[in-house]
């Protein structure tokens, strides 16, 4: 026992020493002589911890809940309860018919800004759902998922540039097939690679695609591109470089059936999402899904019992790519603007974190993860104005908490990284994962 505490103490001291200069010192460049000095900056380090205080509070509450649950045995009692079991089963079977009218009717009750936020969440849900097919169901790690997302968005943007009046409802199905085709072509040679190599190839694909889109620009006057072929290509497909493409109003979501553009984008995203969830769930509970599961658990054994491993992997890969491409079209049609940032590595990481948090291999988990990781930081950002508007809350909540809530959106990616590590260490199956998935993750 004492040695364990000593180890913890040593660990904390070690981490404090390693982070000491970055937290408690500040660089002071001397521009006259081009040298550098440091200054003692205790407030700077303190600010970091104060900004993170809501996170510590939430983490403490979660820890408390887990400890209480362990002592009281709530979750085991609930899982053993037959009424709950059948209710949960019925819910997952018939949920769509119940929730669809509720979700769709939201369009009349929320403001334009909330609907825009929900549409973005819907697009992330679609991405998480698609990525879950490869990472969660089939066990193929894809690190460049944003590449396919960007592929769809740029396909739409470039197509509407060259074909005037090219509408979103034509782009979305085309993007589905083209994205699927791109996934198929990339997957065909890749899928014989081992898991971690596949991750890197897809990452390379996304990065190469992003760089290509950044550099295929026509109006770049100081361009040092010397290859005539690339210049010719940039004439046909002008991506506008880092500035991106602004889509024409004819192609994006516009007024339709008495709804405004924002309402249309919400309804369409919701419908596409329902369709995708239905499709994926049907596939997962079909022989195809069983084959994916078998590949995930043991590829060699799956091949030995006659699962067509390569075909099934390709199907999973191209389906998930197709879903991402459709999400890309939706994004372009919603915002009317496409830039290389949408295929940035951070996007891929964000979607991966959503899938991992929600539960690898569980479609509803992916949706939950997307909602949590996108909405929680957004709402925390809104909290200060809510607190400020309420006299009781503004009297209770100290000012520094309000400030830190405002800064918290900067900390988003830091927290995503932390969530990924902690989930892998303590709950590899995710929030909605099964015990079976946990055993799979913890053993080779």
């Amino acid at each position, binding site marked *: 026992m004492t040695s364990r505490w000593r180890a913890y103490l040593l660990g904390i001291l070690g981490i404090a020493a390693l982070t000491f200069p970055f937290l408690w010192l500040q*660089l002071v460049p001397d521009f006259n002589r081009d040298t550098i000095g440091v200054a003692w900056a205790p407030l700077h380090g303190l600010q970091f911890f104060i900004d993170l205080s809501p996170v510590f509070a939430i983490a403490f509450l979660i820890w408390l809940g887990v400890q209480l649950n362990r002592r009281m045995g709530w979750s085991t009692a609930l899982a053993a309860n037959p009424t709950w079991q059948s209710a949960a089963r019925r819910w997952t079977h018939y949920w769509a018919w119940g929730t669809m009218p509720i979700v769709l009717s939201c369009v009349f009750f929320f403001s334009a800004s909330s609907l825009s936020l929900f549409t973005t969440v819907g697009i992330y849900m679609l991405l998480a759902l698609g990525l879950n097919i490869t990472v969660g169901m089939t066990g193929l790690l894809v690190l460049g998922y944003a590449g396919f997302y960007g592929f769809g968005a740029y396909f739409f943007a470039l197509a509407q540039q060259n074909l005037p009046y090219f509408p979103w409802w034509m782009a979305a199905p085309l993007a589905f097939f083209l994205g699927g085709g791109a996934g198929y072509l990339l997957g065909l040679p890749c899928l014989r690679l081992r898991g971690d190599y596949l991750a890197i190839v897809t990452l390379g694909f996304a990065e190469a695609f992003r760089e290509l889109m950044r550099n295929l620009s026509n109006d770049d006057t100081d361009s040092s591109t010397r290859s005539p072929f690339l210049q010719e290509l940039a004439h046909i497909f002008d991506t506008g470089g880092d500035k991106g493409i602004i889509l024409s109003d004819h192609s994006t979501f516009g007024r339709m059936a008495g709804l405004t553009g924002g309402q249309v984008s919400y309804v369409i995203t919701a419908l596409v999402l329902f369709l995708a969830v239905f499709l994926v769930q049907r596939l997962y509970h079909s022989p195809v899904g069983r084959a994916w599961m078998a590949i995930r658990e043991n590829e060699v054994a799956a091949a030995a019992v006659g699962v067509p491993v390569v075909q099934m992997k390709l199907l999973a890969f191209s389906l998930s790519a197709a879903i991402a491409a459709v999400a890309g079209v939706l994004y372009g049609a919603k915002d009317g603007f496409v830039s290389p940032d949408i295929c940035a590595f951070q996007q891929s*990481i964000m979607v991966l974190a959503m899938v991992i948090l929600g539960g690898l291999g569980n479609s509803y988990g992916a949706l939950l993860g997307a909602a949590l990781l996108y909405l929680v930081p957004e709402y925390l950002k809104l909290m200060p104005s809510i607190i400020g508007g309420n006299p009781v809350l503004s009297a209770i909540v100290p000012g520094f908490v309000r400030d830190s809530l405002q800064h918290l959106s900067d900390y988003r990616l830091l927290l995503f990284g932390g*969530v990924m590590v902690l989930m892998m260490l303590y709950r590899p199956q995710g929030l909605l994962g099964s015990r079976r998935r946990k055993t799979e993750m913890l053993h080779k």
Partner: protein
Amino acid sequence: MSSGSTLTEIVINGISRGAVYALIALGYTMVYGVLGMINFAHGEVFMIGMFACVYAMGVFSVAWGDHVALNLGLGIVVAMIFSAGYGYANERIAYRRLRKAHVLAPLTSAIGISTFLQYFIFLTVSKEKVNFPRYYSDWLTSHGIHFAGVQVTYLQLAILGLSLVIMGALYFLINHTRLGIALRATAQDQLMASLVGIPVDKIIAFTFILGSGLAAIAGVMVAMNNNVLVFDAGYRVGLKAFTAAILGGIGNIPGAVLGAMILGLTEAMTTWGFGSQWDDVTTFAMLMLVLLLRPRGLLGERVADKV
């Protein structure tokens, strides 16, 4: 400028880039050789090395003034210590418990650590680029020797010389010392190694520390050469070094060096032929091609899938 000197320039530029990539690639390849996992956070350890060096030089210049050689030398040592510390911490916190887990688990955890460290520096040090203090790197980057009509800076020479010395030392360490034997035994079979009394945990930690120290040296060199430090520097350079490691055959130490040199030369040629903004496209295209055509790399051995 005659075409002869252009060619020399490309070659020198390529080799000095390659030497930096080699130092980082060695870290990837050693960890892969021992644990069979891609240490995705290695690029961030490299980035930490850059920043630790600048902080250390700042502290020294406040403490006893601007002595170029002393501060720079000590700065590199401090950078190595910090990077090694971060490498060890990553292994201890994020990887050790997942050593027996499914491939996805440690990889995801590594990506998490990598994102965490990047944004830790982003939030605590600087959201913008930080300039490397010119006062310390000026002499090294603006003076040099003339070779075949091209100026080779002292920094490029230092990069090349240091890399050669380190690689030689590493080769000796792995092939001719007891530690190296223990390392190779751990790479072959952890269980058997532990049965013959090799402290497997310590050997693995040592691998991380060694690789991270090398990455720190590369970090300081790159920071001096490019004159800027930025929180996501490790991601890009790390990915390139990783490409180099795969190109040569991951897990294979001479392969990493060979792959890094090929990559450096290709990049220098791309910069010359198409413009520097196409560097990354070429790198990633090459990575994909290598993985597709010869996944085991140039010098790698074919590994059978374990059942």
